[in-house]
């Protein structure tokens, strides 16, 4: 896995006004987490559970800031009831989700939540954008960020394993 599209993604998020990166560590977001951690104009927030990121981004919006939540598809399940806050409060929300349990998955434990992530989010009112090709990452991120910030939408970008690579663990 090279860092080319990941670095371009980080730059496009920063250009779009994102200053807060909340994350649960994940190999698919390694570059974004590392970049945010050394960016003096951004705040990287490590979370104990993904659900905290939903609250954190809502709180950041109340304070005039803009954040994104970086997580793996398994983390979607930890967030579900907190999506009530986003949906009922019409908070802008953007999550970047590195997928497990799809293309080429080798760990059977990852299949249920990987397959369930998208329908669960759609049931809670999030708009899901699946990205499978490196050249789509930056334009899709720009579109997702515009929908979140201009339309108070809740958007999830699903970075598929065809893009980020299937894991053997």
């Amino acid at each position: 896995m090279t860092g080319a599209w990941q670095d371009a993604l980080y730059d496009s998020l920063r250009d779009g006004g994102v200053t807060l990166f909340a994350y649960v560590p994940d190999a698919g977001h390694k570059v974004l987490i590392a970049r945010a951690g050394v960016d003096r104009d951004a705040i990287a927030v490590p979370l104990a559970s993904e659900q905290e990121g939903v609250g954190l981004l809502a709180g950041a919006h109340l304070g005039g800031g803009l954040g994104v939540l970086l997580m793996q598809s398994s983390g979607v399940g930890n967030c579900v009831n907190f999506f009530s806050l986003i949906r009922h409060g019409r908070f802008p929300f953007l999550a970047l989700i590195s997928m497990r349990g799809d293309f080429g998955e080798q760990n059977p434990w990852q299949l249920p939540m990987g397959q369930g992530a998208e329908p669960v989010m759609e049931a809670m009112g999030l708009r899901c954008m699946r990205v499978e090709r490196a050249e789509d990452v930056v334009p899709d991120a720009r579109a997702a960020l515009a929908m979140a910030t201009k339309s108070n939408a809740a958007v999830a970008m699903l970075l598929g394993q065809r893009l980020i690579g299937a894991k053997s663990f």
Partner: protein
Amino acid sequence: MGADAEVLDRKSAVPALIGDPADFLIIGGLAGTARDIAHLTGDGDNAFLLGGAMGAAVSVGLGLALTQPGRRVLVATGDGELLMGLGALGTVGVMAPANLSILCVDNGHYQETGGQPSHTSLGVDLAAIAQGCGIPNIHGVATSDEIGAAAMALRAANGPVFVLLKVGMAAPPATRRSFDAAARKSAFRQALLGAP
């Protein structure tokens, strides 16, 4: 604790601890603490009160504190709400925002759902958990003579601050509050930022 031990009433202890609520940006947890804060602020625009998403209050407050470092942020929540999102206390300890104070109004029960005991009635110590999460400034308040120092810490100490207020089962103040989170969000941002 003797038979005549003082039991604090949230209706007087919470206002005494917070003082002038206008000095804070406030995130209120569910149910009882939301009513405490709504009553104290007149459902004011410097407060955003949850009506669901139980367990989110500390995380919302942390996001607000990180984006408003020049303002004092107060999370006021109950023991049940806090227990549902304990990991967030660890995240507060890691990020260590100097401007964040957490007030847990601990009556040891899920009062709104019928008064079932919570873990804090059964041996769980939220102040010890907060301390173990690396929160440096912890105050336990069980009697009225402990209110003064904790009130000072909530508004002025180098945070994060955690105050565990032990209260009895007296009901929170009867008050009306809005449950329209989108409207309350816009009002909060309008008051703070000048734009919804």
